Every structure is written in C-alpha cells, then in structure tokens.
C-alpha cells in the first residue's frame, strides 16, 4: 500500500514521493528553477510548503479540482489525457493515480504539523555478487521516519546504476548483471541516497589466484579486493622501473646515472625501502608537495593586484607552505593555521587562504564556502545552494550553515597598496536560507546545532575540520595522496566525494585515512607506506585478467608526467636550465607558479610550455584543471620546438659521453640510463648501432638518438 495506514493520504508522506518518483520535480521538468510550462515544483521536493501552495492554491480548481477529482490537471496531465510535455507518467489503474485521486477527493488537505519526517533509508542488501551476466536480483527500499515507523518505499524510490554496462537497475529496483566488473546501484528517496555494491564476476575457469607476497596492510586490502573480483595483479616491477617510478613520484625528476648505478649494484634486500626513505628526506619532496598544495590553493602573484594577491603575498603563502612541509608539520595543523588566520597578506602567509582562493574584489561567502569544501573535504556542496543535494546527504540547511562561517570574512586596505588586512567582521549577519529567508547561523556539515563561538566562528570550524574524528577531512587528504602516486584516487575524481561516488575499494580508503590520522597527519608516513607496498611496485605489464582494470590498482597505470615534472626532467637529463619570466634563472619548474604583470584574476599558466603540457592555470580549485592528455601540439613542440633542440648538445654533456665511452655501444648504454633509467635491450643496441654505422664520432647521430630517447613515450610517462 502506498498510502499510510489510517487511509488518510498525507501530502508530504504520500503525495510528494509520487511527484518525486514520477519525475515531476526533477530538474529537467517542473523542478527546474523556472518550472516548466508555467508550473513549478521545488527540485526533488525540498520545499513541501511551497509545492503545496503551487499545486492547490496557485490556480484554484485547476491543478486539483476537489469537486471532480478526475478533472484535476495534476491527474489528467500525469496520465496523458491532455497534452503534457512530460508525456504519460502512469496509468489510471496505478497505485500512484489512486493515491493522488484519494488525496484530492478528500479535499487535498495540507498536513498537520506532526507528519513524520523521513530520517533515512535502508536497503535490503549491502552487496550483490553475480557469477555471470544475465543473472538478476532486486533491492527493496525501506524508509525510516522520525517517529521510528518504517515503510517499504520501493515503489516510490528512484534507481540508477553508476555503470549500466556492468549492472543495470530498473524502475522496480530489479538488478540485472551485464558484464564483468564492479559498480554500485543506487536508490533515492526523499533527500536520501543509498548504494549497493554490485559485482559481476568474470568466469572462474582459468582463474588462479597467484597469492602474491604482501608487504603491508595496503597489499592485504587491495589483494583481498582483487581476489574477490577474480583479477590477478601484475608481477612485481624490476629494480630499474621501481627506481625511475619512485624518484619521479617523490622528487619530481628522474634519477641520475650515479644513483642508477649505485642502486643497481646494491644487493641489500632492503634497498627499495631505503631508497624511499632517502627520497622522503630530500628537499625536492617537500618542494613538490608545496607546489601541489599551492596549485590547489590557487596561488598566483600579480604585480598589479588590488585584491591582495600581489607577488609578495603569493610568495609569503608559498614559502610558508614550504616551511610546513619541509619541517614535517602535521597536515591538520597546517590547515588549521590557514583557516583561522587573519592579518596582513604580506606578513602572514597562511592568511592568504582568504585572498588566493578568491582573486576578486569581494570575498563572496558562497563561492568561498564551495571552494573551501572542495579543497579540504573533497565535497562539492554548491548543489545545495538551490536544493538539497540530489545525490548526497547535504541539505540546504547544511549549505547555508556552512556558508555562514565565511559571511564575516572581509579584507581592508593595509598601510601600503599591496597590502590587505584579513579580518572577521563579527557584526556580519549570517547567510539567509533561499526558501524561507531565515538566517542560518554557522554550523558544520551534518550537525544539528550551530557552532559555538565568540563572534569569529572560524576557530570552531577549524577544530571540527581538522579533528582526527572528521573522516571527511582525513579521507580527502589520504585520497589525494594516494591519487598523486597512482594517477587515480580510490575515490575518483578526488574532489567529488559523495554517497553516489563511492570508493573503488572502501576498506582501503578507510585504512589509508585511519593510518593518516594515527600517524598524526604525517604526509611522509602515508607516502612511505604506499611506496613500500607491493601494489605500488607492481609492473605495468598486464595479464589476461587485469588488462581492462582501470580502478582496482592491479597493475601500474601509464601516467604522463605533469608539465612541471616533465620540464624538470628535461633539465635534469640535459643539464641545461630553463628559467621562467620574472623568476631567478635556476628556478625549477616545480617551484614556479604563475606571476603576472597585471591582475591575477585573468592570469594564465604564465608559460607557453606549461600551457601546452596542461599545467593547471589555477583558475579554479578543480582537480581537472591539471591536464595530462597528450596532444598533437605537445608532440610538435618536442619534435621541433625550442625546448629540446638547444638542450641536445648543451654544456658538452653529450660530447663528453661520446668521448668517454670506449665504444658506441657503451655510449648508447650511458644515454639510455641517463634518459630512461635502464640499459638498452639487445634489439635496441643492434638497431641503433646500425643507425650509427661508420659515423662513430659524429655527434649528430648521437644527438638524433638522444632526441628520440627524450621523445619516447617511456620518457614522458611514468610507468
């Protein structure tokens, strides 16, 4: 039965869910901000009171006709008896129709105040595991109300699958397995979304679990998952590959020839772990992570910067971050400092959170709250500005309460033109709720009570945000660290964490976050664990079972080097510095951030190479601002542009290699180690030796080979 027990039909409890289920209040129909064809409903029903008015009172006797219920437009449109852009939604003999009809016949009453409110939904199962495509099952949805009553709302819920080619779900909640893989199917009811993990297994025949050795908890959790999914991980990668991979990942340039020879010569069984420890101590590790933070926080410096984003402020912020990371400051403390900072943008580096995330005349609390949440929580709450988040738990109350943390954030001119003083105006009024315009005092996400504070609520915000108990925070940080080392988050993309975008391996995600908390939010501890895992050290060579895997970390995925790392790699290998406009000559690409002569709001990457190879222009906090896709322009640049040609023979390095090598073969080996951190294969030596021919002392032919090493896929990708 759709209607509640007493047979009296409730607007909120019975009618609204039908409008939701039939899609009437979806964004593409009457739930659009402007409504549709003259009739507007609140999106997914966030405003029941308003919806009641629009259905019953806006056009008396038309949308509902209590005297002749079947003449109500609400019913006639829904069954397609009169022209309806949305077509026929259900039949007159359906329960949906009957319920609406009974409600109208009863006089279309509004609810008394005590109608039970939905507080959650429960699904009949947590996981589906199908042996093969074609198998079916079904999920039941139960709503739980604040009076503890429960009701089966399967016929009122809406369903979707995150990957219908793995498993699809129909409007009745029936799940059909399609092809091998793993995904989630979701049910939505009221403002709640809940998911069921759904696995479709590949055939068991021919699959044998190789039972690889496990180095730590990461291996246990990844291998446990892989085994369940009947995916065998790739083999452990060789020492050459490991050395190149970990050096590029941790210090952002390839290993030197000397480092290669020393590492390869060592017979110490702990040499991989030692190498990781050594790289973690390198300043370049901290510099690289400084840039990753600086990018997320949108640090750009301008020479003309009326909004507090002067080069001097940018530098104060960037260098402050560098000091925190070099000294191993716990990440939560670092974030805490930024959140509560006030004062001069030139003197107090972390206060620039409130200039750099903005790059505009005014700090708009809504925009700021959205960016803040995306950076520090990985959550995009901005959907809830206009309606409860349709695919997550965040409500408009959550959103406006969160925005109010920043409603007093202001800046005023300092003693000189470059200076802005950041302060919290304790007299500022909180954000107003969009629907009923009531003031929404500052409140952390998911809380019921507003935050306690003495005028500046940021102390309370920071305490909640960076607390070890705040899983949103620790998961976000752990996931971003993982993504930096694998090219993909356990939750992906890293800055769109929501109920309907679950981790590809939930126990792994939880363990990484827990480990980060237990280590005292120590970046190096988590990176050390990850790099020491066998999972990180797997080969990129796939096997029959993991060829198609792109999200379970069963092999190393090819990752193009970031623009800055690629440039620093060219510099490292050729020995010729690059330099950037308005920066000291020997500045590394990873230490460089955009500086502009003008206003930072319009700044770009600040460098043609960086732009061509997709470095983030820092125009937004979105992780997708960093582009790693290869393009034709990149190829042309590496083939004939001004980055490689002058470097091929720079500083006499190539000449020295030719002269100091006893044979052309030895010179080739040296060039391969220098460029690709490996010795040439036999086929390569034969083929390239043939190209050299008699010209054993001709620098040109070596230069051409050096060119081809630097133009190889192996060079520009980590693998």
């Amino acid at each position, binding site marked *: 039965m759709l209607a509640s027990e007493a047979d009296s039909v409730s607007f909120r409890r019975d009618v609204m869910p039908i409008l939701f289920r039939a899609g009437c209040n979806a964004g593409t129909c009457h739930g659009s901000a*402007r409504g549709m064809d003259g009739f507007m409903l609140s999106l997914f029903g966030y405003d029941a009171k308003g919806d009641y008015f629009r259905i019953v009172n806006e056009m008396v006797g038309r949308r509902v006709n209590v005297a002749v219920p079947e003449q109500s437009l609400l019913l006639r449109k829904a069954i397609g008896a009169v022209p309806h852009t949305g077509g026929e939604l259900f039949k007159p003999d359906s329960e949906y129709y009957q319920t609406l009809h009974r409600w109208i016949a009863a006089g279309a009453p509004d609810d008394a105040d005590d109608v039970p409110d939905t507080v959650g939904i429960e699904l009949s199962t947590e996981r589906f595991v199908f042996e093969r495509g074609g198998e079916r099952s079904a999920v039941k949805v139960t709503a739980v109300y604040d009076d503890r009553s429960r009701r089966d709302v399967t016929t009122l819920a809406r369903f979707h699958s995150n*990957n*219908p*080619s*793995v498993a699809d779900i129909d409007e009745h909640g029936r799940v059909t397995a399609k*092809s091998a*893989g793993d995904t989630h199917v979701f049910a939505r009811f009221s403002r709640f979304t809940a998911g069921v993990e759904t696995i479709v297994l590949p055939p068991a025949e021919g699959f044998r679990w190789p039972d690889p050795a496990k180095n730590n908890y990461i291996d246990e959790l990844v291998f446990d998952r892989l085994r369940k999914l009947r995916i065998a991980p790739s083999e452990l990668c060789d020492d050459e590959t490991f050395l190149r991979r970990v050096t590029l990942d941790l210090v952002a340039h390839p290993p030197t020839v000397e480092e290669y020879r020393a590492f390869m010569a060592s017979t110490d069984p702990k040499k991989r772990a030692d190498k990781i420890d050594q790289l973690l101590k390198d300043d370049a590790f901290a510099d690289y992570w400084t840039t990753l933070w600086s990018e997320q926080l949108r640090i750009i410096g301008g020479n003309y910067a009326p909004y507090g984003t002067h080069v001097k402020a940018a530098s104060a912020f960037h260098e402050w971050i560098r000091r925190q990371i070099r000294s191993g400051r716990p990440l939560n403390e670092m974030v805490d400092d930024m959140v509560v900072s006030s004062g001069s943008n030139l003197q107090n580096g972390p206060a620039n959170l409130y200039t750099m995330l903005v790059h505009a005349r005014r700090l708009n609390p809504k925009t700021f709250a959205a960016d803040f949440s995306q950076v520090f929580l990985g959550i*995009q709450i901005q959907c809830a500005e206009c309606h409860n988040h349709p695919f997550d738990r965040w409500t408009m109350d959550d959103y406006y309460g969160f925005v109010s943390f920043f409603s007093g954030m202001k800046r005023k001119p300092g003693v000189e033109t470059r200076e802005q003083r950041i302060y919290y105006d304790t007299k500022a009024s909180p954000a107003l709720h969009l629907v009923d315009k009531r003031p929404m005092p500052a409140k952390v996400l998911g809380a019921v009570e507003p935050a306690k504070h003495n005028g500046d609520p940021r102390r309370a915000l920071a305490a909640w945000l960076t607390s070890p108990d705040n899983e949103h925070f620790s998961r976000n940080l752990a996931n971003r660290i993982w993504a930096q080392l694998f090219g993909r988050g356990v939750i992906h*993309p890293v800055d*769109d964490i*929501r109920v309907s*975008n679950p981790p590809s391996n939930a126990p792994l995600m939880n363990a990484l976050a827990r480990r980060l908390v237990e280590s005292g939010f120590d970046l190096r501890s988590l990176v050390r664990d990850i790099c020491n895992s066998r999972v990180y050290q797997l*080969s*990129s*060579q*796939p096997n029959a079972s993991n060829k*198609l895997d*792109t999200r379970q970390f069963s*092999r*190393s*995925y*090819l990752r193009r080097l970031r623009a800055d790392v690629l440039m620093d790699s060219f510099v490292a290998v050729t020995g010729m510095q690059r330099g950037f406009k308005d920066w000291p000559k020997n500045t590394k690409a990873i230490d460089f951030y955009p500086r502009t002569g003008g206003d930072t709001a319009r700044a770009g990457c600040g460098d*043609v190479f960086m732009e061509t190879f997709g470095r983030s*222009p820092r*125009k937004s906090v979105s992780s*997708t601002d960093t*582009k790693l*896709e*290869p*393009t*034709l*322009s990149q*190829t*042309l*640049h590496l*083939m*004939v*542009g001004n980055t490689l*040609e002058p470097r091929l023979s720079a500083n006499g390095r190539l000449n020295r290699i030719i002269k100091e090598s006893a044979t052309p073969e030895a010179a080739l080996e040296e060039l391969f180690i220098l460029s690709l951190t490996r010795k040439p*294969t036999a*086929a*390569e030596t*034969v*083929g*390239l030796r*043939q*190209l050299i021919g008699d010209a054993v002392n001709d620098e*040109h*032919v070596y230069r*051409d*080979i050096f*060119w*081809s*090493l630097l*133009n*190889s*896929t*192996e060079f520009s*990708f980590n*693998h």
Partner: protein
Amino acid sequence: MNRRTVLQAGSLGALGLSMGDLFRLQAADNKAFTQASGAKKEAKALSVIQLHLGGGFQQQESFDPKPEAPVEIRGQFGVTKTKTGDHLSDNFPRTAKVADKLSIIRSVVGKVPDHGIATYHLFTGHTPTAVIDFPQMGSVVSHELGKRTEMPPYMMIPKKHGFMGGTGFLSSAHGPFELGSDPGGRSYQVRDFQIPKNVSIERLDRRQTARQIIEQRIRKLESDPNVLNTMDGFYKDAYSLLTSPKARAAFSLDDESEAMKQLYGSDVVGLKGPDNRYHPKGLAERLIVARRLVEAGVRFVTVTYGSWDCHFDVKRSTLDQMPALDAAIAGMVTDLDQRGLLDSTIFWVTSEFGRTPKINKDAGRDHHARCYSMLIAGGGFTRGQFYGASDATGAEPARDAAPLEDLLHTIYHQLGIDASKELLAFGTRPIEIIKGGKLVNGLIS
C-alpha cells in the same frame, strides 16, 4: 614506397619488425570504440567553420532587433532591411546584403545562463556532470569521420578556452590542434611548426626511426594500447605536417590578395583603443585561414572572436566589435559561395547564450539562455531563411523553439553523423552523442 619508408624498412627489417608494427595507428580502426547503430548516413556537408563569440552575444543589437519595443529593450540602434525583406540590426549592413545565402535562427533555447556551463553545453551538447566528461563536437566529428587528408580533422584558431571542454571520454587524439598564434596578429606564425634550420630532412627521418626502435619495448609491455596508439599517431601526424608543403601552405596567408582580405573586412575597425588609435580586429585573417584549412581537408575549425560579456555599456561593446564581425560574416559567406564551397561547408556563428531583453542600470545587458540567436549558412542549411521567432521582448521563443540539442543534432546530421548513436565511454559505457536531439527539418533543404 617513398624514401622514408624504405629507410625504415631497411633498418628495422634487421630487427624482424614488420611495417605493420610501425604503422599500427594507421590500421587502428577508427570505429573501434564506437557502437554502430545502423547504416552510415550520407553527408551533405564535409566541414564546419564555427565562429564562436565568447561571453554571450547581444542578439538585440545583431540578429534579432526589436524596433517596436520600448527603448529599454530596443536599445540604441535601428534596423536595416535585408535582401530577403526581413530586418537585422543596422550594425549588420553587409550581412543584410547576403541574407539570401544564410539562415538566422532567432529561437535558440539553451539551459543555464552561466559562462562555464553554457559554453560546455554548446561545445559538447551536454551540461557538465561529475561522472562523465563529454567530448567536444569537433572531437566527435574527428572520431566519427576521421581525417579527410593529412590535416588534423579538428583545429582551433587561435586557441581554445577552458570552458569549451575537451575530448572528454574520447582519446586526446581527437582534440583540437591549436594554431597557438593569431593569424590576425602582426607576427603570425603557427607555433612549433618549423623544422630547425640545422636539422636536415634525413636527420628528421633518422630521429623518427630511432624513436620507433625505442618505442618497441613499451609496446611489448602492452600496458595501455590506447595511449601508445595515440602517441604513435601524433608523431606520425606531426611528421607529415612538418614535411608537407601543402599542409604548410594551408596555414599561410601569403597567397591571399589584399582584395580578398578586404572582402572579409580586414580594414574595418571599431572604436579607438586606449592608445587613442584604431586597430583592425584580425577576424578577417582568422576566417581566411579557416577557409584555407577547410580547403586543405580540415573537418571542423573553431574560430574565436571578441569578448561579448557586456554587463556594462552594450552600446560600446557593439560599436567596437560588431563592424568587423558584420564584414567578416558577409565576406566569409560570399567567398565560400564564390568558390563553390558553401554547399559543402557549414558556417556557424555561435555564442554560449544571448543577453537579457531589458538594458540594465549599467547600460549593459545580462546573461539570457532561454532565447537567443545564431547564424548558420551552407552545408545544406536553407538559404535566405529567418527561422523561428522570439516574442515581443525577445524573452522567450514565440514559435519554432530550437533547443540547442536539436541544432547540434541537425548539424551532425548534415555531416552524415547520426547523433542518436551511442559512443562507448571508458570502453564499456554507451553514451548518446546528443541526448534527445531532434532533426530540425525546417532548417535544411
């Protein structure tokens, strides 16, 4: 076999490699990741030149004037009669004279009046989602139709903008090639397009050969065939572009006469710049290069012009940027027609949305996506037509509303692509090229 392949066959033959290994990409089936849906359609048009006016173009001062409306809607300009007896804003005298060769659509319906979302919507046909990144139209065309000649199928003049999206779930091989230099600028030279003087063609070949030898190892790992194919393809494409005189000539303005440039309005200026002098806008040269690229076989060229987000002083924005636009549109249509290219080339003038009917307190107009205008000519689109209409104030379509999806669907149709066809995202997930688009029969003939 040409000299280059002989050279490669010679040195690689010793390694037991076949030519097949070397030209893997060439063999890679263009439709490998496409789910076919019925027979291939017949193409009416071979190419598209999209002139994009970023920022939100004022339809009231251009294609959809409201001379009868009160001044706060009508604005500061009058109208001019077109060759077909209709009216355009009097900012469009040259275009009015060629109105018999083009269609103006006055009832385009977008979705969201936000630059980022609307630009993405225009370029991909979808509003952005967190789960799926949709490919740009030019990328879909490249994916579906492949190359016509050695030229990259999709190009941007002078370069792309972040809002336009990218290749989405398609390989970056289908991304636009950006000139990286403005044909209308004083020092126009396509970026990274010149073989260094000290590198002979023999050495360029030797470099390619050495690279192929080194690529074999990662090839054998078969880690990610898509990435490797894409990289291979780029090196092959880059080589043919760099070494083909025909390709190089396609980018150059050297063969174009002064008269031709003036036909496109190269001498038309707007308002004085901050230096108190007049400056040509460079649009004429951009469009001429676009036409040359289409002649050389490019399928989709996107040209950008101007900055149209006129929240302040719509009159100034109009007086400064519109004259060169009018001249360039008329020149482009006339030139394509004279060359017999208009029937096979779609010339499409776009903006992510229009402007609000009422002029605001700053004498500007704000964002308006519910009803705006576009111009489209050639490629089988009806000549001399004003399609659809906005209501008295221009707020809503009054008849023949044309949702953006329908327009894109129709352009795809003319190119021989069924836009209801599904592409496979991530190798497994079917996604329609355009969701719910319908063919607008009234636009084509």
